[in-house]
């Protein structure tokens, strides 16, 4: 009985507590992100933004959440019901499971697996299924068009994301996420030597999360709201939460790969007093601000231009940069772990 407790129950309880410690702040961040997005957009467009619910409108996100929660879930009669309901759950679930390998500080990671980066890449490549399943199961033309667009878009940009990750991994010599951050502790953060890759990665994450200017799957001018057309109430809310949690995840990944994760910018007195998770949070917040900034500034891409950018600009360039990075590392004898 004591064995049962020490081998199964206690680790189980610890894991459960860790899951809660990640998911609850994450969902709070999602709520605050939607509020921050509306406030930033309002400021950039000389409006007030949400300012009624709570002080400075801070509780707006919770009011919206409560409203969605109490609405009726409409199931279209011609929809494929099971897949229709699985799709939003899948999107939400996938946006949460990726966080197990994200290190918030040295050793502060739920599961420190050796193939962490590949795991993140695999999970983010699964994100397309939520949209494709939703589009197909809705049995309606706008969602279907949106599903087709999204499938093509996300597969295209994943290729260049893969190459960018390979470039970073060449400089690290390990697939472990914590090792990626540690590799930047001694030298410079990777966004300086790999600056073009940093830009390509950021733009590709915009496309991967279906954000402006690549939000073609939900382009309201042509597809109404794309795959979300038939969704209402909590099913819609799950898509919404999933999309924003994915934005935070992708910003976190960018911060880890290029901006040194939890590391302070300079390892000297006033900077290294601040604990690592706060640096990580600040970096994510900065990237999310850029996400919103891009949304307010740029018009939506046309679909053929989106494909051209992915396949004819990013793919050759990132392929060239992989070869260049590998060549430089070998030529100057800087290959790690040899």
């Amino acid at each position, binding site marked *: 009985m004591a064995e049962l407790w020490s081998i*199964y129950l206690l680790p189980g309880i610890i894991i459960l507590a860790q899951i809660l410690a990640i998911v609850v702040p994450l969902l709070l961040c999602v709520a605050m992100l939607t509020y921050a997005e509306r406030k930033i957009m309002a400021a950039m467009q000389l409006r007030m933004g949400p300012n009624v619910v709570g002080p400075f409108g801070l509780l707006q996100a919770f009011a919206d959440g409560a409203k969605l929660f109490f609405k009726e879930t409409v199931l279209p009669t011609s929809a494929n019901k099971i*897949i229709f309901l699985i799709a939003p759950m899948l999107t939400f679930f996938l946006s949460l499971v990726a966080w197990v390998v994200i290190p918030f500080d040295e050793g502060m990671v739920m599961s420190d*697996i*050796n*193939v962490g980066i*590949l*795991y993140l*890449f*695999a999970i983010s*490549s*699964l994100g*397309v*299924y939520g949209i*494709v*399943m939703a589009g*197909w199961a809705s049995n309606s033309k706008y969602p*279907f068009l949106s*599903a*087709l667009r999204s*499938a*093509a878009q*996300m*597969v295209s940009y*994943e290729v260049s994301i*893969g190459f960018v990750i390979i470039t970073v991994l060449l400089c690290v010599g390990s*697939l472990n996420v914590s090792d990626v951050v540690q590799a930047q502790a001694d030298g410079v953060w990777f966004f300086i030597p790999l600056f073009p890759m940093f830009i390509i990665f950021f733009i590709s994450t915009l496309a991967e999360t279906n954000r402006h200017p690549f939000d073609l799957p939900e382009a309201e001018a042509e597809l109404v709201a794309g795959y979300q057309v038939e969704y209402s109430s909590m099913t819609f809310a799950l898509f919404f939460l999933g999309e924003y949690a994915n934005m935070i995840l992708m910003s976190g990944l960018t911060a880890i790969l290029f901006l040194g994760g939890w590391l302070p910018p300079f390892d000297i007195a006033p900077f290294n007093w601040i604990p690592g998770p706060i640096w990580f949070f600040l970096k994510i917040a900065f990237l999310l601000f850029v996400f919103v900034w891009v949304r307010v500034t740029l018009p939506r891409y046309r679909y*053929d*231009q989106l494909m*051209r950018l992915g396949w004819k600009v990013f793919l050759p360039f990132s392929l060239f940069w992989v070869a260049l990075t590998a060549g430089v590392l070998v030529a100057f004898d800087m290959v790690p772990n040899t």
Partner: protein
Amino acid sequence: MILQGLTFYVFAAIAVAAGVMVVSARNPVHSVLFLILTFFTTAALFVLIGAEFLAMVLVVVYVGAVAVLFMFVVMMLDINFVEMREGFLQYMPIGVLVGIILLVELLMVLGTASMSPEVLATGTEPIPDIAHRQNTAAIGDVIYTKYIYLFQAAGMILLIAMVGAIVLTLRQRPGVKKQNIAEQVSRRREDSVELKKVQPGQGI
């Protein structure tokens, strides 16, 4: 060990059940979704035997890319399900034949392995201990040294298949207007706008 055993049987059962559903589901989209489930549980089984690199690559390549394209095609099919059921009996003998051949091959491989283990030793590298060599590095050690020619040949075959697919589907349609971004960007005001002084009542 009980937990590992339990997870193995759960995942194995799901994988087999999903595999059966792939061929027996009436709706082709459901088939593809079950195929994805099969890939995914297989990846979980890879994790259980300590091959986490293979597991992740399976998810990235098959679930993340190949199955998406499968789904892409299957979603757009307009299939009459009644017709498909009629074809079932016709194709069953071929399916059964392929299944039996696969089963026999598997049995032969496993039989060789269990009856004469020294045969296996001729072709394989010793597996290094996980404690001092991660399996990502271990796979790299073997692929890029001992099997480099086979690996490169596989890459060449894939490249040729890719070129072939592009050649087969590429068609040049005459009369289609295409955007030339370089031309658009290099356009200057002097090329297109000309300032004329127009006398009243005369025109240009």
